[in-house]
């Protein structure tokens, strides 16, 4: 056998023990859904195998969860910050101890490569809890007044692309600030949140401080519209974000939204080309492109176009698509049949509208939901694939001539979550970053996250910030 084809190197599934069915985590215990609820199945998108049956919370269950969070709020918010910090530190350490189990679980339920869940997701989850644990006793000094108060019960609805990481982004600052939480994970990826519930038990977190209710859109709607909720935090599509904004308008509820994006990744002709190509690949193919801040629009300076495209195609040919649990997989499975259909539809539109489609030769597994890494060249601002969020491994390539044109094109989108700049010239990077209307601007890197760094959008990418000192503001009054 040639060395070129690495032998299969699968991570063992035996480190994670998935129960056949899961209830709702309310008031510190797992309970079955009430008669108003039901059950649904969650599948492994790489094989379509059913992983577990999960309870779907109905209106009564939402009531119970919000009531539990309300009861827990008084004592939890009255704890000295240093005491709350102890729980958060404990949770962070348990996450580290169970990191292998959580990584395998996340890859099974989401379809992302184990390399990413092991090296990116789970370490960042632990880092978020460690970071906000440190803030819990320093809230007075965070710049939000001498005696900032928690808001109360936070309703949190998170997406399926980074199930456990989005949970951490929401739960850690909420608890540090003294709020209690009712969290609804996405319908297609409920398992890591349920394992997190187990971690809360293991950490002996007081009952009701964290409640996890599973279900689909209706459950989420019941939760954010519940009158007992003081704060709504949502990460997901712009369309659902709009509905939530409408439903909380005129109520006392505070709202933060982290929505879609169509980020421009801008490559100048003086860029470090090999690293820029890595950044382009990481920008759009990381997590199968299921990233709200993905660099889905590549803007290349025309004078470097041929060089960049040649290098990009060469690099894409080495991407390893396949079994998410194989340690050498770079691109895993698309999270659901519905998402795959959406990616396929928009890709068809791209081809119909005249853009040129290219994928490296790659063999996709017969079972499961798969989409080959794809680029479209000859894309213009008028194409739908340059305007709409595809949320998949599909890159639209556009060109520009001058820095001004790059800024115009980059900002010419209803979104404004992130952007990337590649150049060896520091002054150019700073001048560009000033003018880009995006919440995060990466320079000579892409898709880098850190708990100390605030994250959030301009325009239709939402409002409010998560992460860093800024992330506390959404949970304090």
């Amino acid at each position: 056998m040639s060395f070129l084809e690495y032998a299969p190197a699968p991570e063992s599934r035996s480190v994670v023990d998935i129960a056949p069915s899961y209830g709702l985590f309310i008031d510190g215990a797992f309970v079955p859904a009430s008669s108003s609820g039901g059950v649904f199945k969650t599948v492994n998108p790489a094989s379509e195998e059913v992983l577990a049956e999960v309870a779907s919370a109905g209106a009564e269950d939402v009531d119970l969860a919000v009531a539990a969070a309300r009861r827990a709020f008084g004592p939890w918010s009255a704890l000295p910050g240093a005491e709350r910090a102890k729980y958060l530190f404990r949770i962070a350490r348990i996450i580290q101890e169970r990191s292998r189990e959580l990584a395998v679980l996340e890859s099974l339920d989401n379809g992302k490569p184990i390399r990413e869940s092991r090296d990116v997701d789970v370490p960042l989850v632990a880092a978020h809890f460690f970071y906000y644990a440190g803030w819990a006793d320093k809230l007075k000094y965070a710049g939000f007044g001498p005696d900032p108060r928690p808001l109360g019960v936070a309703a949190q609805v998170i997406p399926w692309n980074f199930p456990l990481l989005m949970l951490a982004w929401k739960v850690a600052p909420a608890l540090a600030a003294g709020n209690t939480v009712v969290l609804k994970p996405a319908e297609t990826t409920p398992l890591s949140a349920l394992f997190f519930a187990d971690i809360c038990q293991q950490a002996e977190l007081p009952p009701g401080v964290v409640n996890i209710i599973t279900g689909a859109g209706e459950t989420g709607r019941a939760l954010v519209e519940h009158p007992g909720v003081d704060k709504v935090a949502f990460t997901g599509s712009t369309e659902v974000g709009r509905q939530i904004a409408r439903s909380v308008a005129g109520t006392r509820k505070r709202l933060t939204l982290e929505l879609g994006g169509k980020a421009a990744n801008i490559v100048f002709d003086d860029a470090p080309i090999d690293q820029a190509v890595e950044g382009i690949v990481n920008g759009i193919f990381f997590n199968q492109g299921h990233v709200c801040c993905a660099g889905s629009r590549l803007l290349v300076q025309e004078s470097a176009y041929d060089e960049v495209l040649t290098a990009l195609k060469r690099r894409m040919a080495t991407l390893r698509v396949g079994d998410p649990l194989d340690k050498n997989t770079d691109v895993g499975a698309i999270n659901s049949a519905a998402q795959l259909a959406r990616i396929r539809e928009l890709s068809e539109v791209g081809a119909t509208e005249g853009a040129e489609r290219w994928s490296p030769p790659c063999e996709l597994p017969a079972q499961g939901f798969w989409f080959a890494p794809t680029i479209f060249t000859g894309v213009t601002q008028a194409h739908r694939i340059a305007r709409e969020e595809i949320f998949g491994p599909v890159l639209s390539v556009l060109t520009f001539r001058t820095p001004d044109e790059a800024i115009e094109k980059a900002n010419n989108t209803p979104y404004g979550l992130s952007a990337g700049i590649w150049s060896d010239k520091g002054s150019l990077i700073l001048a560009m970053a000033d003018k880009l209307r995006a919440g995060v601007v990466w320079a000579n890197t892409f898709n880098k996250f850190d708990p100390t760094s605030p994250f959030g959008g301009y325009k239709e990418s939402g409002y409010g910030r998560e992460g860093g000192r800024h992330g506390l503001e959404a949970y304090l009054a």
Partner: protein
Amino acid sequence: MSGSAFNLRSFLHGLPGVDKVGVEARAAALGTRSVKTTAKAAAIDLAIRMVDLTTLEGADTPGKVRALSAKALRPDPADPTCPSVAALCVYPAMVPVAAEVLAGSGVHLASVATAFPSGQAPLEVKLADTRDAVAGGADEIDMVISRGAFLSGRYDFVYDEIVAVKEACGSAHLKVILETGELGTYDNVRRASWLAMLAGADFIKTSTGKVPVAATLPVTLVMLEAVRDFRAQTGRQVGVKPAGGIRTTKDAIKYLVLINETVGDDWLDPDWFRFGASSLLNDLLMQRTKLTTGHYAGPDYFTLD
């Protein structure tokens, strides 16, 4: 500044820059590849075939060199299926001794030359050093560049020196040691790689092994990108040799992964990639025995030299 010096400078400074954080992250990511079972067995045999088994000590004697030559031919006396290494690498004074053992075996004989390791000698001395080694039977010459001249921007001086040594080599292959640990930046590594290739190097090599920082994955990655781009522009393929500090099978496999995923299988061959190493060989042999027999043999089952 002469016209050619100006052209050389503008060319080298016009090469795309290297982002330090990015190249180190990429090398580290490739370092996490998991190479197991059949792929590992193939990798170990390939790595053995790529070793330039090296002894470069003041204490080298004919006896020591003869012993190492025998090891180069048959690294694992207990297993005839174990391949020979690519070459033996010694000081010029030891070349005739090694040549006697290796003659006709297919194992190459490399000699460091040009006032190795510092390169701080007049050109005439360097050329005489080179001619001596070739006359003694070396078919590969590992030269060092004048880092002082390179760092002070005298690219034409370094270029001319490489051209002169290449001429003195005759038909022997020329490996040009950049001593990347003294170049300070990845930009310099890329420039020095191109400079050496433009001047006629058959191989570019990272290090002498005589300064604190020797071969690293990111440095080798930059050099691999350089040989890839050079071939794309000129049609000529140049080899790469990381040397110094590569001691374990795990390390060696990381380098093979780097080749595999950046320049492809054209370089996965002893003609185009070498490991300059001494202790690496025994670790490769130990892992090879482990894969074939299922258990580890103690260090005493492998020859010292």
